[in-house]
């Protein structure tokens, strides 16, 4: 049954893909309606959701120690004494991920039926969307690193195809290519990490690796050095930096917003970008063995969270703001993993999937209603024109700001508390995290205020509410964003308990920290969020004043608007030099050095031929003859000279 989870979307992909390629793609052929293709795709992913649910209950009935279901499909690579099975495995961790992927995925598929209504090629779109779900499910269900890597690159491919979905716009095609290549840089690390794991431990299977290291109480085997484990963890984390858009490989995600909005919601917010956290959580027993690696993860996470939030403050494209906010929230998740609170990281993955999918789809609804307008400076007052969207968006907004009892509050608070109290935590990590939380509340309120409050600033647009096929999924996500946090209430956490077989619970609090601090910090972070909201609401209720403030800080504002010039710096440091050097290699090494040597060899023989006044024919046969005679002479020498 396990294999059915990824197989359903694969079937959906094949149906839509074949139908599209054979009967819709050729020029002049009629394109299928988003209704039909969308229903096929939605059914496929919904079936997969049902199976995931069944598997979830099946897992629940198993005894805790043995909560895993394996399925070996076939032997994939079997050469010499290396063998690798195409094997799937579901356990509490992957079960949660499959539920989120298929559950949120189904809602986004249904939403897309409405959103892609006017698109020219919905058949292709839904085929890609299903293919993505297939790859994503392989990623979380893969029993070993290579199977996971297959899904890992597969989602990268779908992301590439979907970002560049409207390929006639060269900028969008370029954004897709950028995403793939930046991800490949990460995959380079993933590959090397995999090699090192294999040469160190002789296995690539997660369960074998875990058992071999001692299961829940893993320890470093005597034959292995801490350095090797640190190297493995950091290399794999490079892969996570790519996929989960962390410094320095985050640059592709904001550009990825070129894709259709449901894609941004599904791939670039709710699922694919969290695969890095999944990988770290999956290998938590390994990361926990290396304090240095954990430190790297936590620092990169918290810096990314902070850095991306600063950029989000000044952006005016509604999707770009959400994109940087995603980068920032992913940073939080890594911060959690980096202080050893993997469960908190996974918790935030889930709540974030709810509220960020909601925010993106809400933004999509706004964009749809505003006729493809994405600039929030041209919006305003939409609460009257789009009351349903307004309501659900408000739920997402409060959730991401961390206002209790919305879901984001619980997970973010858990992360901040662990960043402070865990043995790997520090006040510094907490401080940056808390500052990010204030900024988050600020920029999200800014977005919310400029979009829904005030009055409409663009005159010529006729705004309309979105159809029910789009609104109903939003409402479901809104409910989830409101109540989703209760699965992880501190100290009573169902989630901690559920993940226990995969991620051993750690109640470790660093010395000198009293448990009551948890309540103090919670109050501080809620107050911080409230402050952020208050300031933003005040500021953007009076736009001329906000504009004046902007003028006052013009320098900083420009740096932030231009995203700290990171893209330009990369262009200058890497892209240009590599291209230049390659050209140099080609023109001056290949053509000028090697070829010239060869040609002069040719000329040399011509010259010697002229000297001998025998080779004036210049014919190839003649050279051959000379060479042949030479050989005979050499043979003679070898036989009689060396013997």
């Amino acid at each position: 049954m396990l294999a059915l989870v990824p197989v359903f979307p694969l079937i959906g992909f094949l149906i839509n893909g074949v139908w599209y390629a054979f009967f819709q793609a050729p020029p002049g052929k009629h394109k299928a309606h988003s209704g039909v293709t969308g229903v096929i795709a939605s059914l496929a992913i919904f079936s997969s959701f049902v199976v995931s649910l069944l598997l979830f209950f099946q897992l629940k009935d198993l005894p805790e120690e043995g909560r895993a279901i394996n399925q070996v499909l076939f032997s994939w690579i079997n050469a010499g004494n290396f063998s690798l099975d195409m094997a799937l495995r579901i356990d509490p961790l992957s079960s949660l991920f499959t539920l989120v992927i298929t559950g949120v995925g189904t809602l986004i598929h249904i939403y897309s039926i409405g959103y892609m209504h006017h698109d020219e090629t919905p058949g292709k779109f839904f085929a890609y969307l299903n293919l993505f779900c297939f790859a994503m499910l392989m990623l979380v269900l893969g029993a070993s690193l290579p199977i996971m890597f297959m899904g890992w690159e597969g989602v990268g491919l779908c992301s590439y195809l979907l970002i560049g979905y409207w390929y006639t716009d060269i900028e969008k095609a370029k954004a897709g290519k950028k995403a793939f290549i930046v991800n490949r840089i990460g995959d380079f690390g993933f590959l090397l990490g995999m090699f090192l794991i294999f040469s160190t431990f002789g296995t690539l299977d997660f369960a074998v690796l875990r058992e071999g290291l001692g299961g829940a109480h893993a320890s470093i085997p005597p034959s292995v050095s801490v350095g090797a484990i640190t190297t493995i963890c950091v290399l794999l984390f490079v892969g996570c930096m790519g996929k989960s858009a962390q410094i320095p490989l985050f640059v592709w995600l904001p550009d990825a917003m070129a894709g259709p909005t449901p894609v941004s919601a599904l791939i670039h917010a709710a699922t694919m970008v969290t695969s890095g956290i999944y990988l770290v959580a999956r290998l938590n027993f390994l990361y926990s063995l290396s304090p240095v690696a954990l430190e790297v993860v936590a620092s990169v996470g918290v810096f990314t969270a902070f850095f991306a939030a600063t950029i989000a403050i000044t952006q005016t494209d509604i999707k770009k703001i959400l994109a940087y906010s995603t980068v920032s929230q992913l940073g939080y998740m890594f911060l959690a993993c980096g202080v050893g609170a993997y469960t908190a990281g996974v918790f935030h993955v889930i709540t974030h999937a709810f509220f960020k999918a909601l925010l993106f789809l809400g933004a999509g609804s706004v964009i749809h209603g505003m006729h493809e307008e994405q600039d929030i400076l041209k919006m305003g007052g939409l609460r009257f024109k789009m009351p349903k969207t307004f309501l659900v968006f408000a739920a997402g907004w409060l959730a991401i700001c961390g206002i209790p009892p919305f879901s984001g509050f619980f997970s973010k608070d858990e992360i901040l508390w662990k960043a402070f109290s865990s043995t790997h935590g520090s006040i510094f990590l907490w401080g940056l995290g808390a500052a990010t939380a204030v900024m988050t509340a600020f920029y999200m309120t800014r977005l919310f205020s400029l979009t829904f409050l005030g009055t409409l600033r663009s005159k010529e647009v006729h705004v309309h509410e979105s159809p029910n096929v789009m609104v109903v999924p939003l409402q479901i996500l809104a409910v989830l964003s409101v109540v989703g946090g209760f699965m992880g209430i501190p100290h009573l956490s169902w989630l901690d308990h559920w993940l226990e077989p995969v991620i051993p619970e750690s109640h470790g609090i660093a010395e000198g920290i009293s448990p009551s601090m948890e309540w103090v910090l919670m109050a501080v972070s809620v107050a911080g969020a409230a402050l952020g909201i208050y300031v933003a609401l005040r500021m953007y209720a009076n736009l001329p004043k906000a504009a004046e403030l902007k003028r006052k800080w013009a320098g900083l504002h420009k740096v932030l608007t231009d995203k700290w010039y990171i893209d330009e710096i990369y262009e200058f440091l890497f892209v240009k030099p590599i291209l230049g050097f390659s050209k140099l290699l080609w023109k001056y090494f290949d053509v000028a050095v090697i070829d010239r040597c060869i040609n002069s060899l040719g000329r040399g023989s011509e010259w010697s031929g002229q000297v001998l006044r025998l080779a004036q024919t210049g014919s190839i046969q003649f050279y051959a003859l000379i060479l042949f005679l030479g050989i005979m002479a050499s043979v003679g020498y070898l036989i009689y000279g060396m013997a």
Partner: protein
Amino acid sequence: MEWLESHLITTTVFLPLLWATAGLLIPVSSQGGKTFLKTWIFFGSLVTFALSVWMFQQYSPSGPEFQLSESIEWLPQLGISYSVGLDGISLWLIMLTTFLMPIAILGSFNAVDMRLREYYFLLLSLETGMLGAFISLDLFLFYIFWEAMLIPMYFLIGIWGGKDRIYAAMKFFLFTLVGSLLMLVAIFYLAYQHKVQFGNYSMLVTDLYRLKLLGAGFFSPQGLLFLAFAVAFAIKVPLFPLHTWLPDAHVQAPTAGSVILAAVLLKMGGYGFMRFAFPLFPEAVATYQIPFMVLGTIAIIYGAAVAMVQPDIKKLVAYSSVSHMGYVVLGLFSLNSLAATGAYYQMLNHGVSTGALFLLVGMIYERRHTREISEYGGITKVMPWFAVIFMIVTLSSIALPGTNGFIGEFMILLGAWRANQTLTVIAALGVILGAVYMLWMFQRVMFGPITNKENEKLKDLSFREIAVLTPLVVSIFVMGFFPNYFFSRTQPSIERFLSRSGAKSQTTAVATVTLEPFNQIKGN
């Protein structure tokens, strides 16, 4: 029938030549005659393929030894004989050759219109040469086939090639000839050594494998003999810095020539290493291991870097071959079974995916008569089928898991990691660069708005073209998901060649769900 069964190899090898000779008699003055000739030739390549399938079925996958062997004395005084046979290494390369030949012929059905009879005669005699080289068990026979391949290719490039065809053909010919003549010297020396050690001349590989050759140093007799073979094979691979004939030859060759050149001829180099250079000179291989791994790594990076900046699609694909074949050399010289099997698989992969790439390039070339990337842009809009297939082949070329390319690169790098970690790290950078040059090219050719008016009216792939590409696309996925089907037939022979070439038998732990292997590792 019985005769056929006992001479299956010989029949398969020489059938294309005979068939093409008969084709010379077909009058081609009329259009009907031309079509008849093409059909005749295409049919011939299909019959050859069918014969090779028969041969494939006769082959028993379990054994490492040569099978279906035939042997006739030829020049017994010099120990030369007509000896042919099949093992797991030659098996798939033969299948690759006979499989690609009909595809290359049908794929360029309308590409050539001049001197048709000669063209097809050369193409099929090329097939005989290639097949012959793969099944020769006698070094002299191998050498003859090796040289025989050269001639048809030389003419194919020189007569039916592009603008600078003469220069390209000359370069191709001289490079290969110089390399192979050194090998000839070594071959004679080996036969003589056999006389010294065993009392009679012999050129049979199975005899020569028993030779004890002196020395392990770089310039010991064994080292020199290895070099003589290695240079010939390295030129064919082609290995940096002996690769510069390839871009010229590829760009100038007609489509079918490019396809065969990339898909099969380059494999001669890798095959030569596996069949001759490694088992004959085991100590020398160990001595030269690191230098060749370094060259392979340089080729991977260098080929990719130079491919990145090519303005000409065909040249880009040619340099990508340098990069891909660099993986093969890296894998072979890692001297362990994982990497060597990966390297062998990579040769097949490269045959399929680069063959397909040259066909695709040929197809748009026939429409627009230009290979400049900048002439294209936005082609997806007008050629959706072309776009889909081109995308799949591109993915195979950048080794996406699920396609054949991944299996090869993954195994090579994983195996090479055991041999030398530093080089593997550098070589793995090719994974990034490969994506860069392929996707960048794809974007410039296929995406964006159509900027060039001439591209607006391009016709999508015809039924014939789709039929040509379909088997390749199917192979990409079959080889990506079920490599075991290939390995199971090849593995015994690869193990044999490795054990003979002195590779330390390395116990690789098994990655399965069972827990024992890990405990063993831990125990150590």
